[in-house]
């Protein structure tokens, strides 16, 4: 069907920043109105879909077996998007789940996201457009069927992709078989959610079998006939610039086809991966390195008061109240450099011929990769086809893809397909890291033990600036880094005076998007501090928070998740049988999430036994996959909060391998995770990142109740061992 001629009529035009939700909490201080609008859009979680929704023809294909192939412009990196999209489409198309197949749309198909897959926006941004496309497609086929059978459209009924009228029936496949011209009707009215058979149900993942039986679905699994293997030398030093290289030895190594020197890198092409790597290791590169950075240098840079400050939230007069006087409470918190450590390394299989290029790879940025390769090779963008594969983890690591450009350059040099991947050491040293942060929180309590004024200062390396998620033209307009302050605002709108200031610092190594951006560290700081304040005020940490949430819709949803988590977990301040509970709550992209953890100390280490998570993402298109995201995010968040840390030693980022880069493993995973899903919104919201928010603070708060020791630095490590 995708080859057929259609009469194109733009009927589903969306995009731009047209649908901005009104933010209930706080007032932005951006003097520039564009800054304010963008900031509000991001915080409200309403990111519009940025691709072509003008015709179902580039989205759906009907196969001769009467199955529907959905060409998804959003990539599948584990978050379950393919399954949710299939459910949404199947319900409007009136086909069964078994009839739905989902594949990645390649860039040449024209169905391309102008932006990226990330930021927990895939299902939310396609909720309306995809169902409208599916409904439109159904009507298009139905109209043709009516013509063919010779009845009016009202007389037709549909079940599982078969259209019937009395004795007559015809399948979608039969209808589309000989249609060459489609008329696109007006967008039909969508069905009532209550009529849906699949949306809202725990349908098994559509990629489950491929992933259980070991199908070759990842970027690293891609092969082409006559394929060669490439290897590119990457620096282990921070800030190294390539000058020149001695390749004489490499050229003589077994299996080597060619060694190439480009203005910015040197690479090898060989018959096998091992041969390419062996030859690469003999190349001596002349790198220019200006400075040998150390962890202490980085720590000195990431400090509130350094860099450029931006006030991102302000209500009342916190500045004045907190500037002097008695009873001002202050605490500092810190988080380290974090690595993505996704299991599948970055890389690509490129095939460049004459004036075309085809690239197979795991990427979150299809369009950006296409444009970069076209520019480097001097090709027309239409002649570069990015074929996305399943991602062996994304987490923001695949928003930058110079590796695809390098693979393409290598392929062009030999006129054959070349596959070129990072080694694990290169992944660890050339990552686009989660930046370290420093937070200063200040507050004053009123006589009745409520917060009179509170202020959060956060210093962070860049997150969104320089990433594909934020067009660089917006950088000077926005100023502050929206990624760095994600989750950094005060969510307790009933506090009379509050303010958040984001300090922007440029670090000497690449920092960027890491699942949930600033949320993890910001929530750790704010929610630990809230706990400290509650204890000072001699109040239950739960009641203390509930009392300071405003009465509006956002406040209502926040209170509901708090109550649900408390009720499900039976939260108590008491230590029972050597175990204590900790509580924390966050709001990310309009999805509130509250968590209660239960910890003990075993062999002088923090042991998390149980986590209760109550989250309100609005409509859960696939509740089982929303739960799976919560479970995974909780353990990944524990991993980051309790174990992970990159250091800088003599100019290099270290460690460079799993193990020394400590992460949560099976033995650290809680044996019980209870997820309560609330749905107090009439559309699906963010899911993949919000549940990472509360976990760090919840663990630290529990540890304080158990030991009296307040841990203000990630990774959380006990100093004393009183228990």
């Amino acid at each position, binding site marked *: 069907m995708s080859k057929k001629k259609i009469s194109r009529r733009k009927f589903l035009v969306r995009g731009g920043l047209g649908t901005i939700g009104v933010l209930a909490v706080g007032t932005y201080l951006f003097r520039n109105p564009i800054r304010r609008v963008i900031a509000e859009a991001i915080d409200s979680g309403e990111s519009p879909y940025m691709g072509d929704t003008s015709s179902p023809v580039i989205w759906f294909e009907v196969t001769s077996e009467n199955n529907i192939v959905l060409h998804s412009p959003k990539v599948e*990196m*584990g*978050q379950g998007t393919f399954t949710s999209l299939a459910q949404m489409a199947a319900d409007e198309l009136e086909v069964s789940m078994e009839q739905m197949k989902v594949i990645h749309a390649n860039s040449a198909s024209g169905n391309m996201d102008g932006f990226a897959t990330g930021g927990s926006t895939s299902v939310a941004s396609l909720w309306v457009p995809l169902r409208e496309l599916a409904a439109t497609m159904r009507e298009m086929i139905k109209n043709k069927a009516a013509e063919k059978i010779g009845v009016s459209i009202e007389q037709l009924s549909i079940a599982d992709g078969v259209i019937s009228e009395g004795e007559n029936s015809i399948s979608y496949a039969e209808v589309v078989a000989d249609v060459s011209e489609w008329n696109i009707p007006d967008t039909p009215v969508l069905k009532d959610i209550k009529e849906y058979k699949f949306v809202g149900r725990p349908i*098994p*993942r559509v*990629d*489950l*079998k*491929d*992933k*259980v*039986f*070991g*199908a*070759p*679905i*990842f970027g*690293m*699994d891609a*092969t082409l006939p006559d394929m060669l293997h490439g290897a590119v030398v990457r620096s282990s030093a921070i800030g190294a610039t390539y000058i020149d290289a001695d390749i004489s030895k490499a050229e003589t190594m*077994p*299996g080597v086809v060619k060694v190439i020197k480009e203005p910015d890198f040197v690479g090898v092409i060989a018959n*096998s*991966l*091992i041969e390419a790597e062996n030859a690469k290791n003999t190349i001596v590169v002349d790198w220019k390195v200006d400075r040998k950075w150390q962890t202490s240098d980085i720590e000195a840079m990431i400090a509130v008061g350094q860099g450029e400050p931006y006030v991102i939230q302000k209500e009342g007069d916190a500045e004045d109240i907190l500037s002097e006087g008695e009873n001002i409470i202050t605490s500092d918190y810190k988080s380290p450099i974090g690595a*993505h*450590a*996704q*299991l*599948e*390394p970055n890389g690509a299989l490129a095939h460049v011929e004459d004036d075309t290029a085809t690239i197979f790879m795991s990427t979150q940025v299809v369009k950006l990769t296409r444009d970069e390769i076209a520019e480097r090779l001097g090709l027309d963008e239409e002649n570069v086809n990015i074929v996305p594969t*399943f*991602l*062996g*983890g*994304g*987490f923001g690591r695949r928003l930058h893809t110079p590796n695809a450009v390098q693979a393409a350059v290598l392929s062009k040099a030999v006129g054959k397909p070349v596959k070129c991947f990072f*080694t*694990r050491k290169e992944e660890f040293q050339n990552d686009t890291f989660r930046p370290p942060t420093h937070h200063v929180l200040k507050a004053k309590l009123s006589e009745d033990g409520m917060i009179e004024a509170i202020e959060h200062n956060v210093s962070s390396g860049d997150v969104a600036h320089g990433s594909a998620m934020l067009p660089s033209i917006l950088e000077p307009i926005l100023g502050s880094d929206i990624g760095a302050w994600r989750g950094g605002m005060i969510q307790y709108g009933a506090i009379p005076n509050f303010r958040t200031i984001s300090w922007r610092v440029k670090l000497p190594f690449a920092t960027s998007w890491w699942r949930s951006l600033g949320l993890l560290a910001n929530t750790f700081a704010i929610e630990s501090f809230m706990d400290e304040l509650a204890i000072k005020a001699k109040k239950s940490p739960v009641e203390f928070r509930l009392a300071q949430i405003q009465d509006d819709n956002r406040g209502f949803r926040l209170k509901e998740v708090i109550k649900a988590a408390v009720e499900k977990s039976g939260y108590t301040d008491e230590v029972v049988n050597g175990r204590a509970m900790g509580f924390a709550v966050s709001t990310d992209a309009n999805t509130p999430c509250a968590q209660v953890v239960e910890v003990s100390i075993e062999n002088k280490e923090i042991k998390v036994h149980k986590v209760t998570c109550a989250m309100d993402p609005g409509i859960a298109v696939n509740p*089982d996959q929303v739960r*799976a995201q919560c*479970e*995974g*995010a*909780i*353990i*990944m968040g524990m*991993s980051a909060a309790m174990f992970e840390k990159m250091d800088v030693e003599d100019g290099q980022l270290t460690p460079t*391998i*799993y*193990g020394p880069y400590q*992460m*949560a*493993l*099976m*033995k650290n*995973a*809680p*044996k019980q*995770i209870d997820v309560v899903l609330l749905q107090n919104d009439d559309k699906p919201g963010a899911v993949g990142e919000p549940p990472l928010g509360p976990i760090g603070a919840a663990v630290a708060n529990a540890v304080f109740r158990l030991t009296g020791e307040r841990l203000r630095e990630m990774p959380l490590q006990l100093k004393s061992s009183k228990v």
Partner: protein
Amino acid sequence: MKISFTINGKSQSVEIADENTPLLWVVRDILDLKGTKFGCGKAACGACTLHVDGEAVRSCSYAIKFVEGKEITTIEGLGNEENPHPVQRAWIEEVVPQCGYCQPGFMMATAALIDKIPNPTDEDIDKNIINVCRCATYYRMRKAIHRAAALNTEASSSTETQIS
């Protein structure tokens, strides 16, 4: 040199110049079985786990020269859609995978574990299942491992009844 072994029930010989080539790359790039994954190349993540004579082995750090005459099983040989291994059935029933990249390694490690310890306790699982999953699907994996053990015991006891 020529090396002969059995892989997923079939005899196989490969001609290889460097006898220290890791088994992983022979399996992936010469035999084109892509289910066994590369994660680190240093025996640190378990993505490359397969079985050599029934033992779970990290194939990125296992030289091809050592497999002469041995029996190798990869995820493709563990089971298939028509005839899934109990571990694969359990993985499907618990909907374990997210990105899925680490999962073959975990399933191979689990299959070897329940072969040795038919009913592993949580402590057995903690001690033996030490692969890395960045999507952190550990919570469902633990449930799936217990389920796989139960399915496996069921399956073997029903074959025993048939035999007797």
